[in-house]
């Protein structure tokens, strides 16, 4: 029974294809098999995005001692739909001097990347749309499209705030991609595979990489880089509303604006999903609940943490942001590769000790080299 529930989506798909197979030729079945996966992803992604906006507003509201949306539907559950209708019916404003074609293309291109990367996420056992043998690289490579689309939008708006936001997004996303990829390298090194499904397989049975010394820190770095990659607080400089109004999407309204938001939320989901896949054991979990539930739960928790960040933290300044990537994350992830290699090479008790020593050393070194930038505690005088 548990097995059936675990595989319920896979079985449903197979059953449906079997039924089709009675009347239709093979090649159509093959096409339909692909199309179903695509259709499911395309249908699920916007729904996920809509309810993430709801969740974010709700949680932020609660953090700020408010209710959050609670007017449309019970618990405000229909709020995203109302928002969607509002977005659709809003006037679409294009600045007069804007580059019309690119201004139109940017929001279209920007949603493509996060939708594409969903294909390589294993949502559960056997539930992966495309098990590429370069799946991880595919994810990292395709997400770079986002940068280009962002920049298209910011450039085409012909607005200085947009341009500043675009430049920031550009610099930030490139900088953070490097430590992000490097923090993934130990995982590839240990599992010797680039396929996301294989990486999850390697962690089955509570051997999640986050429980290893290198994996814990790599997961932290990966997660923080992921937060930076999707432009969320405290790394939301490209759309810092207090500095550059709305950054790259200042000049967008209506559905185009919604598409920018959709891209941001879907990539938030995708990054959380990838972090879960790489470090938190993917769909692995106690068998009494289906695998897709575990994947969803872990992703949900990571998304909650991102929202929690947003409710608490101020944002970095642009030079601190870059410094963080290049002076802290990059050296650490580079060292982490060696630490992970030690883990893979040595037998059990020894590798743990070696890793602990290695991580302590690198963290101490980072602390020492960055002490100029670390803020100090201050004393204040009183006059009578």
């Amino acid at each position, binding site marked *: 029974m548990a097995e059936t529930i675990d595989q319920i989506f896979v079985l449903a798909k197979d059953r449906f294809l079997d039924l089709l197979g009675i009347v239709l030729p093979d090649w159509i079945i093959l096409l339909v098999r692909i199309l179903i996966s695509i259709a499911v992803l395309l249908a699920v992604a916007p729904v996920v995005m809509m309810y993430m906006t709801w969740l974010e507003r709700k*949680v932020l509201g*609660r*953090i*700020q*001692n*408010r*209710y959050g949306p609670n007017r449309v539907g019970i618990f405000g559950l229909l709020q995203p739909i109302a928002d969607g209708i509002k977005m659709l019916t809003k006037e679409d404003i294009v600045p007069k001097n804007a580059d019309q074609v690119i201004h139109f293309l940017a929001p279209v291109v920007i949603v493509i990347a996060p939708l594409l990367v969903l294909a390589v996420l294993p949502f559960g056992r056997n539930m992966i749309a495309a098990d590429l043998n370069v799946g991880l690289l595919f994810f990292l490579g395709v997400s770079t499209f986002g940068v280009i689309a962002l920049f298209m939008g910011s450039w085409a708006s012909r607005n200085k705030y947009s341009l500043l936001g675009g430049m920031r997004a550009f610099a930030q996303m490139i900088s953070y991609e490097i430590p992000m990829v490097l923090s993934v390298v130990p995982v590839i090194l240990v599992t010797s595979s680039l396929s996301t499904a294989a990486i999850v397989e390697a962690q089955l049975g509570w051997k999640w990489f986050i429980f290893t010394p290198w994996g814990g820190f790599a997961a932290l770095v990966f997660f923080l880089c992921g937060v930076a990659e999707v432009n969320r607080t405290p790394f939301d400089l490209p759309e810092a509303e207090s500095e550059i109004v709305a950054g790259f999407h200042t000049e967008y309204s209506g559905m185009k604006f919604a598409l920018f938001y959709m891209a941001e939320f879907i990539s938030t989901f995708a990054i959380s999903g990838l972090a879960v896949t790489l470090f938190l054991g993917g769909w692995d979990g106690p068998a009494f609940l289906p695998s897709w539930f575990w994947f969803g739960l872990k992703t949900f928790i990571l998304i909650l943490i991102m929202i*929690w*960040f947003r*409710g*608490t*933290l101020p944002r970095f300044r642009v030079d601190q942001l870059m410094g963080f990537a290049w002076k802290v994350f990059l050296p650490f992830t580079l060292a982490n590769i060696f630490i992970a290699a030690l883990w893979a090479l040595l037998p059990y008790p020894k590798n743990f000790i070696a890793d602990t020593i290695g991580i302590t050393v690198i963290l101490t070194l980072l*602390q020492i080299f*960055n002490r100029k930038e*670390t803020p100090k505690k201050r004393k204040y005088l009183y006059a009578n």
Partner: protein
Amino acid sequence: MFGWGVLKGMLVTLWNFLLTYLWPKKGIFTVQYPEKKLPLAQRYRNFPFLVYDGTPHMIRCVACKICESECPPKCIYIIPEKDAEGRVQKKPAVFDIDYAICMNCGLCEEVCPFDSIFMDHEYEISKYNRAEDLMVRKEALLKPWEYFAKIRPHDFERIEAKRAAKSAKAKPVAPAEKPSQKPDAGPTSPQQGSVPKNG
């Protein structure tokens, strides 16, 4: 260690987040406005209204125009009523207040010697048209004295007592002639009321 302060701050927000579920009364401080409303303080002042005793014909205002001239943004406009021979009556024919200009300062209430204009508690007065709808005429401004008793019982008691004393003392004196001569005690018993009247 870098990051400790961040964690501490995050715990604060987490606590506030949990508090809203565990103890909503203390955790959530927003009020669901159209359904629930905060109780207004008695002294709350919004826009002015005119008082009548009994029926709307018995307006207390005598069109002395003190409030009109004291009003800082000059939002009050008064024309006294005239009888057939053109003599000025102690009653306003026109009493307009432009809510768009009024700044709720309450000075009209303070300077009125006849206790006829008071600040209202009504605040849901959104209108679609700024020019016409927010120019409020006499008819719309009139509210019974009992209404005042309802919204501001403390001030009601004080003013009633004062009026009773006044009418007992100087029954035949027409109140409109020299308002500044009235030797009322003013704010000598201040813990009762809000406004030191010059009544």
